[in-house]
């Protein structure tokens, strides 16, 4: 029997506000959020405190001293605040999203909520935005704590451009969290069991954190001609191979986040790819780029993160629309 494609009436966003407000307040008051926040703050303090004590003893003038709080790894703790964030943010996001849809299903609230005048669109988007804003609030709070600690311990205020770079960094961190949030929600739509969806989300995260960086060189070597390997190839061929490797690397959100952070918080960064001698002609080594230029440099990374977030969310959306609500 054929049915003409039916057009739905009414805005798909009816009820978005209430869903968003409920999710947001649920997250903020949940024990899970407290645990995750403690975890994030512990990691933040662990990395920021040693680097602050070391930065206090820096005597040479550094125009971007404040940004060093985020990026410098002290001798005692071998990774920086941003490195710590690059793996606490996914954990936070996965923690917020892994049971968002199947949790409702298992509590048998899904069919009751969907029988109210609301489309599934609004439910999924409201849940995503609720968790994303929770994530943003957590990151802003953390960012302000670090900034405040810096003010107190370094005793000098950040310059305007440092604050601007810091805010841009915050935006990138939220987009990075959004990718993982969308991924964990995708799994929460696919799997009925919350444990399975949590495991899958964590699995994908570990894959990109540990396995992918190991696989990429292998893939690149497999594609390389013997000439390149023995160093007899032309510069174009070598460059093409390096670009292929960067492309593969950048499929991982972790790489995109890392590169965006380097570009924003290390103003001296001029390029994120290979550079040849002739391109460096006339450049002053170590001179910082203006903020606008740094932003331009990492613009592809930012759009990549946002696009990734939207694509994964869209996949979750499509699957959710087709899902049966009955038990």
């Amino acid at each position, binding site marked *: 029997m054929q049915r003409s494609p039916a057009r739905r009436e009414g805005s798909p966003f009816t009820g978005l506000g209430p869903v968003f407000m409920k999710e947001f307040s649920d997250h903020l008051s949940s024990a899970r959020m407290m645990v995750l926040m403690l975890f994030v703050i512990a990691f933040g303090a662990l990395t920021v405190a040693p680097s602050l004590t070391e930065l206090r003893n820096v005597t040479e003038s550094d125009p971007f001293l404040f940004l060093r709080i985020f990026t410098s790894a002290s001798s005692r703790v071998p990774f920086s605040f941003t490195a710590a964030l690059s793996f606490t943010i996914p954990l936070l996001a996965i923690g917020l999203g892994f049971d968002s849809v199947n949790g409702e299903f298992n509590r048998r609230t899904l069919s009751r909520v969907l029988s109210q005048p609301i489309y599934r669109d609004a439910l999924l988007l409201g849940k995503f935005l609720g968790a994303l804003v929770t994530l943003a609030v957590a990151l802003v709070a953390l960012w302000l704590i670090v900034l405040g600690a810096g003010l107190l311990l370094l005793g000098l205020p950040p310059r305007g451009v440092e604050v601007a770079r810091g805010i841009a960094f915050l935006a990138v961190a939220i987009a990075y969290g959004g990718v993982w949030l969308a991924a964990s929600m995708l799994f929460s739509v696919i799997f009925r069991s919350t444990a399975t969806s949590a495991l899958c989300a964590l699995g994908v995260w570990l894959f990109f954190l540990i396995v992918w960086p190991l696989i990429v060189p292998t893939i690149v070597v497999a594609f390389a001609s013997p000439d390149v390997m023995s160093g007899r190839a032309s510069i174009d061929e070598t460059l093409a191979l390096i670009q292929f490797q960067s492309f593969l690397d950048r499929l991982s959100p972790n790489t995109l986040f890392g590169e965006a952070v380097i570009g924003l918080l290390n103003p001296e960064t001029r390029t994120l790819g290979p550079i040849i001698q002739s391109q460096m002609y006339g450049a002053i080594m170590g001179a910082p780029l203006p903020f606008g230029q740094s932003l331009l440099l990492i613009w592809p990374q930012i759009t990549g993160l946002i696009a990734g977030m939207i694509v994964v969310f869209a996949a979750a959306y499509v699957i959710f629309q087709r899902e049966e609500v009955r*038990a």
Partner: protein
Amino acid sequence: MTDPTMSGNVIEARGLLKLYGAQRAVDAIDLDIRRGEIFGLLGPNGAGKTTTILMMLGLTEISGGSVEVLGFDPVRQPLEVKRRVGYLPDAVGFYDHLTARENLTYTARLLAIPRSQIGRRIMEAMESVQLADVVDRRVSTYSRGMRQRLGIAEIVMKKAEIAILDEPTSGLDPHATFELLEMIRGLKRMGVAVLLSSHLLDRVQSVCDRVALFNKGRIALMGTVVELANQVLGAGHPILVEASGIDIAGALRGIEGVQKVMPEGPQGSEGAWRVVADRDVRAAAAQRIVAAGGALTRLADLQPSLEEVYTRYFQEARHAA
């Protein structure tokens, strides 16, 4: 609430079809629910009751046919339908970490009830299901019966014109079942049309005005309980007679209007008889047995029971297959 331009039906399904692959979960059914009645969907598990309900709410896609709810098409206008129809799913869930008031407030926001009215409407609804004193307790402390009543309260708060209840009494103890059925009658008194699905037949019988018997995705029988009984068990007014001392069967057959006299109970046991007549012949039967010198020990009016209809129908369906 009543729209005079509309016909008396609040739900009209025509040839409603749902396919899961090649399987016909709901096979081209026609169904009318009238304004203000309690309608029961009966049938074994997997007969297509819940699927039918979900299609009426626009919660699952329709494979064919059409359904109209209060004049709206659930496929194209699901928001309009869901604004006016209250749904209590099988084993309804609420957010356990929130209180009943918070749960209902969330629903009220989704319904876009004006903020100033929310508090009053929640309390009115909770009073109507006798939960007003526990409105600020977490739902995790509620018993199953209380959750079902909270579900009814949600429908009352919504001021729904139709209440669709999926297995509302399953898993409830007899007392909770009784209370819930009372509340379902209360919905009817408020002018709400109630559509409920169940397999607890004697319970359903006591509240339903009309029922539809589902079997393998089709509606096998539809009508009032008495109509169904006449259709399946045969027309007539059955009574039960227990007596001894004389030829009871002969005496009963002599009464005017009696169509059938059958021994009741296990094979070979004497003394109990089932009499089918075209009217209530209890008085005549008593008179005749006593006059003939028999000892009358029991005389009962046998209401046609839905359970009997159901069992008999499925027996016959199995024999026919």
